[in-house]
């Protein structure tokens, strides 16, 4: 089982704990990663489509040359690439135009066959839950965990959940919490926005969203929240103390990346999953996990 790995900027920038955790987990699972190094940023929903569609088409063409599907560890990278891929696959004339105008110079062509998948989807759709279960060394019993997906891993439907069967993707994280032995502390905003995209345009609203989601999770008794999106992590973890200051309410909720959560169940210790690198202290989670093993 092999993927063209697209780690994304944040997994080595603002969340440098994510990249090595994901690589360790993939290795333990026996998922082979061929990292795409000579490709560009997806645009993250910031840069306009007329610029990012050709850059993403180039990424898809590179993966196509390797004959591999793309695997990401970021909801935003997944969503932006899946939307671009939908446009390029759906409209052969558009794809031909992008190939002609932007990729032909390098001798590249995107034929429209590349799949883009988040690690979360890979676990359920390609790897198999039974196989994952057979590798669990530390069922996370007694931990209460809230899911937080990141908008781009749930919508828009034509790019993310195009069939009735794939609508299941909206519940993968909920399911995974139970599969790894933990209990879910469900929250109403798990599929909503974390506020990160408007941090520079409207900081107050952005922090209000952080406070709403993390506050609700804390009230439901969660030990931590898990997210497949490092951009959500940047806001929910990195800006949680500012959200607390804005609302005058203490929250103090650790936020774990998806691979860290899976990694703990696979038997890695909290240090190996770089939990110490988070802004909100993970000490309580670490001690609970240590008592399990």
């Amino acid at each position, binding site marked *: 089982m092999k993927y063209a790995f697209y780690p994304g*900027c*944040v997994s080595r*920038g*603002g*969340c*440098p*704990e994510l990249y090595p955790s994901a690589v360790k987990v993939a290795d333990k699972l026996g998922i082979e990663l061929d990292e795409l*190094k*000579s*490709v*560009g*940023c997806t*645009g*993250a*929903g*910031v*840069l*306009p*489509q*007329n*610029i990012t569609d*050709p*850059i993403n088409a*180039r990424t898809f063409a590179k993966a196509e040359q390797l004959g591999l599907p793309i695997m990401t560890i970021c909801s935003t990278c997944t969503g932006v690439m899946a939307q671009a891929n939908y446009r390029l696959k759906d409209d052969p004339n558009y794809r031909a135009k992008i190939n002609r*105008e*932007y990729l032909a*110079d*390098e001798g590249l062509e995107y034929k429209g066959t590349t799949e883009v998948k988040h690690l979360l989807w890979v676990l359920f759709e390609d790897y198999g839950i039974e196989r994952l279960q057979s590798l669990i060394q530390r069922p996370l019993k007694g931990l209460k965990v809230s899911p937080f997906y990141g*908008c*781009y891993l749930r*919508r*828009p*439907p034509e790019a993310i959940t195009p069939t009735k069967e794939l609508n299941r993707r909206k519940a993968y994280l909920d399911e995974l919490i139970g599969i790894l032995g933990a209990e879910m502390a469900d929250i109403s905003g798990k599929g*909503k*926005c974390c*506020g990160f*995209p*408007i941090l*520079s*345009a*409207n900081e*107050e*609203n952005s922090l*209000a*969203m952080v406070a*709403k989601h993390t506050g609700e999770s804390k009230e439901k008794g969660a030990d931590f929240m898990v997210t497949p999106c490092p951009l959500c992590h940047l806001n929910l973890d*990195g*800006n949680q*103390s*500012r959200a607390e200051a804005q609302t005058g309410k203490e929250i103090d909720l650790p936020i774990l990346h998806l691979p860290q959560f899976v990694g703990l169940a696979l038997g890695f210790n909290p240090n190996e999953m770089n939990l*110490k*690198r*988070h*802004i909100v202290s993970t000490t309580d989670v670490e001690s609970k996990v240590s008592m399990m093993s």
Partner: protein
Amino acid sequence: MQVTFKVYRKDPEKDGKPGRSNYTLELAEDATVLDALLKIRDESDSTLAFRGCCGRGYCGECMMRVNGSARLACTAKVPDYIKKGPEISLDPLRNVPVIKDLVFDWDAFMWNKIKEVKPWLETEGSPVNGENLIADAAMQDLRKVMSCFYCGMCDEGCTVLPVDFDFLGPAALTKAYRFAFDPRNKDSREQVKIVEKPKGIWDCVHCYEADEHCPRGIEPTKRIVALRDRAFNSGITHEAVARHHASFAASVKESGWLDEGRLAVESEGLTNVKGLMKLLPTAAKALARGKAPIPYMHSKRPDADKIKKIFEKAEQEEK
């Protein structure tokens, strides 16, 4: 079938405190929620206030929450909502000023916001024979947007409105798109500039909830993204957003990927001491945990020159 409706009540002429009334009634198997409300008002409680008009899902007047989810009462079939038990809760939309019972303030919710985006067309010159003719193909895309019947479902689904009621919201922003992208409009930037103001397109988190909620498939989020892309390509007028986007674009153009440290400081503005100071506590914590990206210490991706070439060509094409 016998069903009990638990209906939200609030009467400003009494104490104005929210409460709930329960009505149990016998309904025909094909009854809608609006049928039930009419029956309650006719037969048991003439003080119950709600809106309803066309009765066939066209006018959008009877929007309310049925068992918690926003629905048109006239198309919501009662049997679909009693699968778990013979009780249905009815509430006004979330985050709207309630006037009485299920009647809320549509002006504050949507119409005042639509008025803000200058929802009309100004064309150039005088039309030939009083008509401004246009090729059918040019209207294809807009016709979809014009099928909006103002039910407000997109605003109900919006992620931002629950934290900020002053946000213009997807319904009004989609209306701005309808005129900004009309080929007859003499200034395609006018509506874009209006919605670039605070509480407009840059306050949208583009979470695509609106697209999922729209019953007509108008895809309001994609319209907002198109307005943002047009603003980017013709020069963003919102100061903070312009700095953020310029920095993002520059680092992708120069190195192929994002320099996050640079983005953080340049988004605040290099001469904005107060803004930069605000970053310090978080940056200090991040540094202590060995995770703050140092601005401008960013390596180029292999093939960065090729990505730059694509970037510049795409920018040129747009001009």
